[in-house]
């Protein structure tokens, strides 16, 4: 069964000058995780806002848990959880105050709301900080509390809009751990992200969006094959560049490119690790010392370059008035 279905969604801003959603369709199978991958301004946030009933599309249809988001928004709100790009909680109140308040707004009794708050704080490792104002929380803690607030009623479908944007690496790892836990419990999740790595880590399926359109869909392996897999990057001393390039091309049978400024040689490979070992062995035989070497997996930039022919542009107009805030940690 499909838990989320979006059909031909269109949403324009500034009298049609900006097509945030341009005939976008996708669906999420019940109990699975779909990652919507795209750069800033691709329409990810607009999509989440439409699916979570915050925004009406200009045209198209969408259902969540079989309920129409336009005809019965209140019904949808009863089964979804939403956690946005910024921690949407009351910062002057404590974590505990916030969770109890949201529990009561979900019409739990005072006792039930308190019990649920206690459970969630424990689940998200926030029990010790529960009585402190959110203002004193780290960025990662805020996001976890925000996520906890979206789980009060154990939603059937959860929307996470860039859950780790702006977090430091540690905060990101913690958040991934939390999300993986939820996935194991079987929640249906639609998650947006700018990071291929994140989509890879958390999602069953990935949809790549650009300028309001779906430009690719598949598993992460499927997408990577389309992109052309991995690359070996090697930095050598300036005197060795020409010889090294020759060796690399001979061993990998690929076409290597050289960045002479960085003294970096880069070549696409199919069997990453094996090729890397073969290159190192040949270098040893030739007596060339590699200053730095890496096996690079394709990044979002690579995905975009190969799927769209243009790089992921930051300056594509975002939603109106949308503020680009930095990391709040």
């Amino acid at each position, binding site marked *: 069964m499909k838990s989320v279905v979006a059909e031909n969604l269109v949403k324009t801003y500034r009298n049609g000058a900006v097509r945030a959603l341009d005939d976008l369709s996708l669906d999420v199978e019940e109990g699975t995780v779909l990652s919507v991958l795209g750069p800033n301004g691709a329409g990810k946030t607009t999509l989440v806002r439409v699916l979570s009933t915050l925004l009406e599309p200009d045209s198209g249809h969408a259902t969540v848990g079989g309920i129409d988001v336009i005809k019965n928004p209140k019904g949808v709100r009863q089964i979804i959880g*939403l956690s946005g790009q910024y921690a949407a909680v009351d910062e002057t109140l404590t974590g505990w105050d916030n969770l109890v308040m949201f529990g*009561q*707004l*979900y019409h739990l009794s005072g006792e039930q709301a308190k019990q649920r708050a206690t459970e969630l704080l424990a689940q998200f490792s926030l029990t010790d900080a529960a009585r402190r104002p959110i203002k004193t929380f780290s960025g990662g803690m805020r996001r976890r509390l925000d996520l906890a607030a979206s789980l009060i009623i154990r939603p059937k479908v959860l929307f996470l809009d860039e859950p780790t944007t702006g977090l430091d690496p540690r905060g990101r790892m913690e958040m991934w751990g939390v999300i993986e836990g939820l996935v194991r419990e079987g929640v249906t999740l639609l998650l947006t992200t700018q990071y291929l790595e994140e989509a890879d880590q958390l999602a069953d399926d990935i949809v790549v969006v650009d300028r309001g359109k779906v430009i690719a869909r598949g598993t992460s392996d499927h997408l990577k094959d389309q992109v052309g897999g991995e690359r070996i990057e090697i930095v050598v001393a300036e005197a060795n560049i020409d010889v090294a390039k020759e060796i690399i091309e001979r061993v990998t049978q690929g076409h290597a490119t050289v960045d002479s400024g960085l003294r970096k040689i880069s070549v696409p490979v199919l069997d990453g690790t094996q090729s890397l070992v073969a290159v190192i062995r040949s270098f040893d035989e030739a007596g060339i010392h590699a200053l730095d070497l890496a096996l690079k997996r394709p990044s979002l930039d690579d995905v975009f370059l190969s799927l769209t022919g243009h790089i992921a542009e930051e300056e594509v107009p975002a939603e109106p008035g949308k503020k680009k805030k930095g990391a709040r940690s």
Partner: protein
Amino acid sequence: MNGIHDALIITKRQLLQLTRVPEVLIFTTIQPVMFVLLFRYVFGGLGVGIKGGYVQLLMPGIFVQTVAFTLAATAQGLAQDMEKGLIDRFRSLPIARSAVVFGRTLGDGLPNVVVLLVMGLTGFIVGWRPTSGALHIFLGFLMLLFFGYSLSWAGIFAGLISKDARVVANVSFLFIFPLTFLSNAFASTTSMPKALQYFAEWNPVSTMVAAARQLFGFHNTFGVTAHSLPSEHPIQTSLVYMVLIMAIFIPLSVRRYKSANSR
């Protein structure tokens, strides 16, 4: 009723904020107290001819100015909630769409009870003596609270259409200050140029000040509009103004809230 329950949870949130950051209520109270003292002792000499002194004329004026500031507080608080994405979260919950805005106006109006009480006591210490009896004094304060509440709906609308909390607070004061000073709140309108007198005496702030003075047992002085509706019936005129403000801004605000785009 679920809608009322939801609104009260929002109100409770704001009262809880006051207990978590008590400085906010302390300073919103200190400011008007300071106004009372400054005006009482700086302009005290103005009321030479007034029975009981300038402080009798001043206190209702300062009460009204203070509750009118609620407009800015509401606008700023709501704009902040929009900025932080909190309004998005509220809108994604299965609650009545009017609950958040109703809850906030109530949450911003209730602290005025404390503020007015402290101001009233300060006024008493510096010589304010309402002469109308307990019931009328009570009705006077009730009306002041209601005046602040109705203005807070204009604040809701301002907060919803603005994009920046600090800007909307400043803009609100750009309206509130001329309204409170182009009125009979601190000086008699009779000394103003004629055109301003008309404005000042029909100004809702003036009618409210006149209504409060009447309820506290003090006689107003009127200029060119001495026999006009606001001068003859300040209480009724003020009530009509309040109902009018709410009749305009409640539907506008609820409508706006439904499609509020935080970011």
